[in-house]
């Protein structure tokens, strides 16, 4: 089921960027670790998968079942991939942010931009 309009939330944007950064290696564990490393925030697997499923419903990412390993007790991985619409949504979010920042007084946010 596709939603009519896809606005990206903050966490959705972070997850989408992490998935894009990881490329073919993007699955639950790696995405969570990347988000924690770069965004420096604790991320629960429940919240991560809920977000990924929402992004999938919006048609921004797609997923496929992967292989299983001994470390996972024989359970399969689920790989995620950013779709063209996901890239478009990211570009739009970036453009909006850029438009806001254009002409910003330096030091207004407490540091140089």
């Amino acid at each position, binding site marked *: 089921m596709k939603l009519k309009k896809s606005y990206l939330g903050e966490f959705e944007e972070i997850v989408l960027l992490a998935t894009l950064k990881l490329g073919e290696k993007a699955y639950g564990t790696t995405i969570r670790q990347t988000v924690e490393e770069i965004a420096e925030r*604790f991320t629960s697997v*429940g919240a991560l998968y809920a977000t990924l499923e929402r992004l999938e419903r919006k048609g921004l990412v797609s997923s496929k079942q992967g292989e299983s390993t*001994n470390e996972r*007790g024989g*359970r399969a991985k689920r790989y995620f991939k950013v779709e063209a619409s996901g890239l478009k949504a990211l570009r739009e979010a970036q453009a909006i942010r850029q438009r806001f920042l254009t002409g910003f007084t330096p030091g207004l946010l407490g540091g140089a931009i």
Partner: protein
Amino acid sequence: MKETAYIPIECPNPHCKMLHNVDMRVIKDVLNGSCFVGLKCASCAMSFKQRLLYVTESDGTRRVTVVRTVRPVWKNKLKKFSGALNRNTAEHPRISEPPKLGEYLMYLLLSRQDRVNILGDLMEDYGTIESKFGRPAAVFWYYKQVVASIPPCVWKRLFKWGTIAAIGDWFRRHI
């Protein structure tokens, strides 16, 4: 009256199959009946039970027959746990063991399609943390993940219930 002193019993472990000579005196008090003999394999150290039948033939000969091999104790235990959490332990021997209570709570929280992937991810992370920081830190991390996953998982389930959740979602977004 002819009586065999020992009866050979084979170890049920397919990789071992060692023959054990069981002394008949152990079961000699059971006449025309059956009994179980508990054994521990001298080769692979596996505990198992064997049912023996003591019969008297028409000519007065008494003999002991091995009735069937009972499933070994460790296989019963393995089946119970792997069945509860759907672990494929036979093909994939596990390296580290996440806390069972935490795993079971996650199992209850998650939907059927997410269960395999999320529990696998958690187990993988748990193994990494355990090897780096030790078991107590890994157990703490696991339970932190369980507690933090409760609100999104519950919300996701509510969302699937339809109208009520949709109204709630509208309030969450607009108010």
